[in-house]
């Protein structure tokens, strides 16, 4: 890795914020001043030295809720994104390399899934299935993987016709080598920029689901759920709902700043020796 001085400032800001969010998520029980479900004071107390961000609609410490919320939000989003990328990229690359009926079958199946609005599809599935974390992650991951599939197939089809892939085929290489050693390294930079975007979409999607009451179930809450809990306060001029909303926006921006920077570094064809 390059030294810290060569990292551009936007990327540095992104990295710092992302790391802060991650620390909050990982070490939540040690950092949070109060428990997650612990009622500590009055309803919607303003910010004070005791409660840095005030209290929520049930009188729980908002800062502690935010920290625990970061944990659950990021946990679900990371797993869902990981699932969608593993699934989407693998299937997409296979479709591009194998072609033929596999490609047709997969692509039409994906078209079918994409034809249904994602949110409505998720609402239907989640209201039928038991609402556990696993189902939530699976539903989010699979729905998102259709987008990743589309992208990775499109990229891989372009790379697959290059002479170096043909050279590998002539050498007698198997499909694993062709996918993971010839195609994947060359498809990485668009996929990484997509990774940043999809991670944010996962968080927004999760927030939307929780806001509608189908995401994380109380007493646990992700940031979207917290917006929902506190939304009634807005009418009385209480900004408690804005804090989780702002956190969502901040995470979205900082992750994308990092993704942009990684993209810049990896799209360089000289092994990262050029540019910055």
């Amino acid at each position, binding site marked *: 890795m390059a030294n810290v001085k060569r990292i551009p400032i936007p990327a540095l800001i992104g990295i710092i914020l992302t790391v802060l969010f991650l620390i909050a998520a990982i070490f939540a029980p040690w950092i949070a001043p109060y428990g997650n479900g612990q009622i500590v004071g009055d309803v919607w107390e303003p910010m004070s030295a005791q409660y840095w961000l005030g209290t929520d609609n049930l009188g729980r410490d908002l800062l502690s809720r935010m920290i625990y919320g970061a944990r659950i939000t990021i946990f679900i989003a990371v797993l869902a994104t990981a699932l969608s990328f593993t699934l989407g990229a693998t299937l997409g690359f296979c479709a591009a390399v194998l072609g033929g009926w596999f490609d047709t079958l997969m692509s039409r199946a994906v078209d079918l899934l994409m034809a249904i609005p994602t949110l409505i599809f998720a609402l239907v599935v989640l209201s039928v299935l038991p609402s556990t974390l696993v189902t939530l992650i699976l539903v989010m991951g699979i729905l998102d993987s259709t987008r990743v599939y589309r992208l990775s197939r499109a990229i891989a089809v372009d790379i697959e016709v290059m002479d170096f892939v043909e050279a590998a085929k002539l050498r007698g290489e198997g499909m694993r080598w062709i996918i993971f050693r010839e195609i994947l390294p060359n498809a990485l930079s668009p996929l990484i920029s997509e990774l940043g975007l999809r991670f944010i979409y996962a968080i927004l999607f999760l927030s939307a689901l929780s806001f509608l009451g189908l995401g994380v179930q109380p007493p646990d809450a992700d940031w979207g759920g917290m917006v929902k809990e506190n939304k009634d306060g807005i009418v009385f001029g209480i900004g408690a709902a804005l804090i989780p909303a702002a956190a969502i926006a901040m995470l979205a921006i900082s992750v994308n700043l990092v993704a942009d920077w990684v993209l810049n570094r990896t799209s360089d064809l*000289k092994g990262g020796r050029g540019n910055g």
Partner: protein
Amino acid sequence: MADKKAAGNRKAGPLLDIRNLRIEATAYPPGEPPQNIVIVHDVSLTLEKGKVLGLIGESGAGKSTIGLSSMGYGRGGVRITGGEVILNGRDILKGGKQGLRKLRGHEVCYVAQSAAAAFNPAHRLMDQVVEATLLHGRATRAEAEKRAIKLFKALSLPDPEHIGERFPHQVSGGQLQRVMTAMALCSEPDLIVFDEPTTALDVTTQIDVLAAIKVAIRETGVAALYITHDLAVVAQVSDEIMVLRHGRLVEWGGTRQIIKEPRQEYTNALVSVHEINHEEKKPGRTPFLSVQNVTAAYGGGHIKVLKNISVDIFPGQTLAVVGESGSGKSTLARAVTGLLPPQEGSVTFDGRPLANRLADRPKEDLRQLQMIYQMADVAMNPRQTVGSIIGRPLEFYFGLRGRERDARVAELLDKIEMGKGFADRYPAELSGGQKQRVCIARSLAAKPKLIICDEVTSALDPLVAHGILQLLLELQKEEQVAYLFITHDLATVKAIADSIAVMYRGEVVRYGPKSEVLTPPFDAYTDLLLSSVPEMEIGWLEKAIKGRRMESAGN
């Protein structure tokens, strides 16, 4: 028209006078602060009205950059930082944007290398041909179109009255290049910059375009800068030749002097580039690769690209397959490698039949048969280092790992005349010739009996290509490897082949040992092909065209 004549009377000096031209660009070398590099070092040239000056040199010599400077244009971040470009008696670099706009497409026109990429595919040819003329108000639309049709005729385009109604994709590459020349001539400029107008064309097409350009230049009396890397081509059209290297002038003189009595060593190297000493080997008794009656087709068997092809390759020898684009040369390679399973016929290798489909061939067969591609930069994975590119066949076929593998990679790098230090470089950090050498090393790593070379020198500069050919010949001597050498360049064939197969529309029209194939009497196509190869000789073009005319009349 009147103002042009006035300008013509006013100026007494040459049409174009470039003085101490200095062109710079900013480079971003890895791990260092951006640097200023000088692309053209204080080059001066003058061009009289109606004369043609050839600019010649390898890639990176700055010939296009100098050519474009005559219209005050710097490509992609290139800056003209010094000197004067005096056209029709005024310094165009001082005229500002407005001045340049008036100049381009009016006094100076440009003919690009790839006409197919330079035409807008969404507009009809005529609209594009007359665009500049109308824009500068040189003529009414009707007049301009009349002039364009006259030019189409002069450039011997088929159906000159109606060809302008077609779209760029509806005419062939050679025709498109001629239409582009008509476009440049249409606004009656004083100077045309031809930037490698025939480099991307087949030899048989090149000669037509070349002749058309020459006639058009003579008839309109326009002056021209003709940029190319092929000395034989430039010798046909220009009055003077300027040899450039690394942005510096090497030699400047009359065409006859440059090609007959070059005074500089570098010019001499360019002139004698195709001279390779290679003694033809007699065909052995038993071929080890034998293609028998192969027929292959694309599109589910509908478009037959190969028709009943039979050729043999003998151990340690070179079979050259020549023909123009679309003759099926590369398809033959695909059929031999198994990428395109033949419909009929078979390929025998070392006395045993080779499976038609790639997937059915054992690893050993795949190892014996390697391939080198035309475009070396897409034939290597840009994300792998040279070491892992060359090392992979060693791992894959021989199971070499670690230090053993690295030692062999170093040995191979040595063989292709590149140092050990290249092992951890990426392809993007190599020059064109080096890339092709790495590809050669990769195929050699498998210790093959046959290497298929698909136009391996076509994308390279003459001098670099020369080096690659010599390397291939040396390696053949050392490793006893045979080559199936696919090319459209007959000069290359003459230099390295032992036997030749001439292909035309999917059929082998002439096949045999080199000396036999290249001895008359020829069949019509071989004759056309042979007579189209530019020779380093003044007046060759006229002779060749005349020969062809008689021939086509005779047929």
